[in-house]
């Protein structure tokens, strides 16, 4: 059933236009909602009317009409008599029925997309249900996964994204867990990754500026058939994970741009452990201090150039050489050599990955 607030808003609007007050009760007479000037009809009268076979009835100075839902019958009371009130009461019943239908359709769509993304639908069902829900099957689409830190229950993020990505443009929103929103984004053609990236960035920036929420977004590849949408969803999920582990500074991740993180992410943890032990033996530098990490990263980023790195770090080159030699003593790797530098960078990434696995209690 549609929320009470939505029905109330709809009735209040009708009242402000027509000056007819309304009240809705369920079949037992319990109050569902009412406009500010209305009074609920006696519960027994409502219950009797609900049991009767007639669709409308005049009781005192009010009209009673039935609103049939698949599951329940609701009774609308319109305060007033005469043709005018009856006509307005019928308009109200029609309006509420339409609202219920639209609501159901929306939630059926939501359910459809959830099942589609989680691979819970048969191929034949996908096409049949999509047709019933007026969803075009052959449109290039991709999944943008938006993850929200400290998501609050009032669903500001969902409302906001729902206002940007509208069904009118072929976009849909759904959720499969509490902390993320899934945007099913329609794009113009199958290689329009620029548009997709822009949409993901807009989503992040809008949630940052309008709702002040900390968010990250990741998107999968564009698929041309609805049945492949779950693939795009899995890719977006993987891009989100890889981004968090290896590229924490990025707020938008693309499945197509995961770099070496993509390879490491696929490795089993025992293989990673064997690799780390092979490189470092028993002296695994799990907790390198910030200064050392910063020095290593700067040295690698500056193509193993001592002068350039020391200049960028604002330290004397001898200090840099001392730090590199100290690292060599503790790890056995001399990062001034390309081979060792490469091993060190990969090892750092693998160690980050292992830390991530530990934190997830694999």
């Amino acid at each position, binding site marked *: 059933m549609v929320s009470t607030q939505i029905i109330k808003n709809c009735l209040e609007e009708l009242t402000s236009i027509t000056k007819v007050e309304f009240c809705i009760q369920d079949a037992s007479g319990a109050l569902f909602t009412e406009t500010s000037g209305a009074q609920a009809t006696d519960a027994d009268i409502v219950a009797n009317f609900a049991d009767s076979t007639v669709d409308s009835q005049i009781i005192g100075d009010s009209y009673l009409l039935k609103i049939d839902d698949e599951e329940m019958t609701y009774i609308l009371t319109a305060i007033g008599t005469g043709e005018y009130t009856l006509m307005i009461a019928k308009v109200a019943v029609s309006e509420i029925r339409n609202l219920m239908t639209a609501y159901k359709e929306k939630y059926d769509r939501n359910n459809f997309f959830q099942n589609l993304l989680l691979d819970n639908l048969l191929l034949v069902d996908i096409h049949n249900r999509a047709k019933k829900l007026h969803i075009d099957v052959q449109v290039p689409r991709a999944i943008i996964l938006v993850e929200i830190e400290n998501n609050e229950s009032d669903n500001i993020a969902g409302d906001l994204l729902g206002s940007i990505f509208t069904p009118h443009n072929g976009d849909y929103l759904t959720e499969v867990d509490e902390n993320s929103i899934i945007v099913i984004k329609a794009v113009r053609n199958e290689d329009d990754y620029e548009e997709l990236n822009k949409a993901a960035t*807009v989503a992040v920036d809008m949630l940052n500026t309008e709702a002040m929420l900390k968010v990250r977004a990741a998107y999968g590849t564009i698929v041309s058939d609805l049945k492949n949408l779950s693939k795009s969803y899995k890719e977006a999920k993987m891009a989100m994970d890889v981004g968090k582990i290896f590229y924490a500074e990025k707020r938008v991740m693309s499945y197509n741009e995961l770099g070496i993180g993509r390879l490491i992410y696929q490795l089993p943890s025992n293989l990673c452990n064997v690799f780390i032990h092979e490189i470092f033996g028993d002296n695994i530098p799990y907790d390198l201090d910030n200064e050392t990490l910063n020095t290593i990263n700067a040295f690698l980023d500056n193509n193993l150039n001592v002068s350039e790195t020391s200049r960028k770090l604002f330290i004397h080159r001898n200090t840099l050489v001392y730090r590199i030699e100290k690292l060599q003593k503790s790890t056995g790797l001399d990062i001034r050599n390309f081979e060792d530098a490469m091993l060190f960078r990969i090892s*750092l990434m693998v160690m980050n990955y292992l830390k991530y696995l530990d934190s997830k209690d694999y």
Partner: protein
Amino acid sequence: MASLSLEHVCKTYPNGFKAVKDFNLEIKDKEFIIFVGPSGCGKSTTLRMIAGLEDITSGTLKIDGKVVNDVEPKDRDIAMVFQNYALYPHMTVYDNMAFGLKLRKVPKDQIDKMVKEAAKILDLTQLLDRKPKALSGGQRQRVAMGRAIVRNPKVFLMDEPLSNLDAKLRVQMRSEIAKLHQRLGTTIIYVTHDQTEAMTLGTRIVVMKDGVVQQVDTPQHLYDDPCNLFVAGFMGSPQMNFVDGVIKVNGDKAVVTVAGVDIRLEDEKAKAVIDGGYDGKTVTVGIRPENIADLAEEDMPEADSPVFSAKINVRELLGAEVFLYFDIADTPFIARVNPRTTAQVGDTVRFAFDTKKIHLFDKETEKTIAN
């Protein structure tokens, strides 16, 4: 209205990437502060830390004297305008500006008042009933700003808000933002990589590179007295010309020799090189394009001004000025000269340096020796 204080603020990501290193800055109430620097220098990260969208790894952030490191972004009384904005396509300008407030459950009459006030400030009153489709690029940008203004925040944070606009619109919006700052009288922190935006908008500019603050100063001071080679090169377009020169000291006088030409240093500059022990050492000499004169067109007393002859490689006419590209000691130079100049590509032209405007930098540390 608010003052901000950033003390030893650092940002290190879990993968070891240090985006911001020991950032210190006091921002006074109503200041228009610009963070400027190349991509990846940490300016946006700093802005996001102020907003609360990035955690601060170490250091303290205070707003109006109160430490806000652990305060939720929505409770910091800050509004932001980012580069990538979207207007809600099916909503009117009014609803676009009101939407954020509705989400925060602000009462309707209050929303109405705030939206109408913001619309008046931004000159959008006539457009409140229009949908985004019916707006020009500049009007859309103003609506995006309106969404921030309606919140009546203590501080505005703007992250390259004009970078998606075309050149003409950028210039127009730049002056709109300057006017907005005067009207609102609010503290604004503005991130850009465009030094023209920085020079024209900011009351003070923070120049950043590799996560480190290089210099904080007024636009004029940054331009005239850069603290190092990076700031000197970054501020100004076309950028400052740099060439190697050797210092020769004779008593309390000093010259710097560039391509065989001795440039006599003014007393203050001479004192700086003598005190710094630069005699016989190679330094980097910097001179801005507007401080090089084409002697055929402009007078510069030759006794004081060193003269270089160079062949013109490229000539660019920009209407009000001409850029001449040439080489001195195999180093490319640009001179910004009077459009009357008759110099053409291939001509050998005599150029004079304005010695008062010469900058000297340590070749190793790249720090300024004398401005």
